[in-house]
């Protein structure tokens, strides 16, 4: 059974939880399409905002939530080609030793994933207090590129600077990388914070993110996947689609819906409500992406 055929059956059976539609992100209908999974198709899983080490009332099951998500990913009938982690792997701490202990524990737990091809980027909780020093010890560079089936992935770091800046050096690096690309090339940007001003009064922005968007704007097929806001959200800046992911610790309120971005309270009747991960099915030839949302635990 190929992946798309499987998804079509899963959707009919209620296994596919959600699919959203935007430019750069197409809707998977209930009949799923049923086409053959071409050599140019691939899919990856996005996990975000794990906040390993968090202890508090907004997730009394924090010590086991990541492990359950790992089990759910491992139970996917068709395993992803790779897995991306879009930041806030750990919850922040002032203690450098504790930060490393949390990063090590996180790395050990996700080591149980069947798929071993992982791509990491930091969130501000991982990197802002030491400008990414501990993160780099465990996971390497905080900005880099890689390619899959003709899709160019660009990982941007908008958190190692505590002021939520990419910085001139990284922007110059981005510009140099983009100068080597065809304007029609499919490009996926992975980052932690929104590159655009989603809700600046909640710190949901990148201070110089508009410069990155300006550099990306001449390219016809750009899609951004990010984290930080602990919920699914879709927005366009021109023809560039931005898709945020749910978290694995606690959900946050809808953008700008209240004065402060306080976490939504834990509901013991519905544990893990609002949490989850997503899979992204890429059609490299069409530069389109199908996003399917999954809960932490599938019933």
């Amino acid at each position, binding site marked *: 059974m190929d992946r798309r055929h499987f998804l079509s059956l899963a959707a009919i059976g209620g296994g596919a939880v959600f699919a959203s539609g935007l430019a750069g992100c197409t809707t998977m209908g209930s009949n799923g399409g049923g086409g053959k999974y071409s050599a140019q198709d691939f899919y990856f899983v996005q996990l975000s905002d794990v906040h390993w080490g968090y202890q508090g009332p907004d997730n009394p099951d924090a010590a086991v939530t990541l492990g359950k998500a790992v089990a759910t990913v491992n139970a996917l009938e068709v395993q992803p080609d790779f897995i991306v982690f879009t930041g806030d792997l750990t919850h922040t701490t002032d203690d450098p030793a504790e930060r490393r202990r949390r990063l090590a524990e996180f790395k050990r737990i996700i080591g149980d994933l069947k798929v071993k091809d992982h791509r990491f980027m930091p969130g501000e909780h991982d990197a*802002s*207090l030491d400008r990414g020093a501990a993160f780099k010890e465990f996971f390497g560079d905080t900005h880099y590129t890689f390619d899959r089936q003709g899709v160019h992935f660009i990982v941007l770091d908008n958190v190692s600077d*505590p002021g*939520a800046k990419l910085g001139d050096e990284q922007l110059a690096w981005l510009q140099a990388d983009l100068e080597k690309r065809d304007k029609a090339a499919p490009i996926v940007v992975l980052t932690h914070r929104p590159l655009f001003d989603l809700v600046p009064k*909640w710190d949901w922005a990148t201070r110089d993110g508009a410069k990155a968007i300006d550099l990306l704007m001449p390219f016809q097929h750009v899609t951004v996947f990010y984290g930080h806001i602990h919920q699914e959200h879709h927005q366009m800046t021109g023809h560039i689609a931005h898709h945020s992911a749910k978290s694995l610790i606690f959900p946050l309120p809808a953008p700008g819906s209240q004065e402060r971005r306080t976490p939504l309270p834990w509901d013991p009747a519905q544990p893990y409500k609002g949490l989850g991960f997503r899979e992204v099915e890429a059609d490299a030839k069409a530069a389109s992406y199908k996003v399917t949302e999954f809960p932490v635990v599938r019933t």
Partner: protein
Amino acid sequence: MSAVSRRQILLQLGGAIAVVGASAMLARNTAAEEAEGRVVEVDVRRFKFTPSQITVKRGEVVTLAFRSIDFVHGFNLPDMGVRADLMPGRVTKVRLQPTQAGNFAFLCDNFCGDGHETMGGNLIVEG
């Protein structure tokens, strides 16, 4: 002209310049004090601004004088397009003259630790 008399002229000129300079400085200080308007001192430390609720009148000139204690916090008032880095050990002044009444949120926008997300306040502009 003898060397002495030339030196005297230069000293007198220098004195005159110094007085003019001092006068200009005083004038600038006076203008600055007037331009500052009411000064509100704000203590800044992880993870709060004190006071966190600052009330001003619409059209009033007010200067927020931030004194950060422990970190390079940020002050960001997005609705008014105002932000500043608040260096510890210094007083950072931000001058405002709100033209619109309302309740405007401000926040620390330099990540400062576990509690950063709660670090903010409100500028209340009375009509």
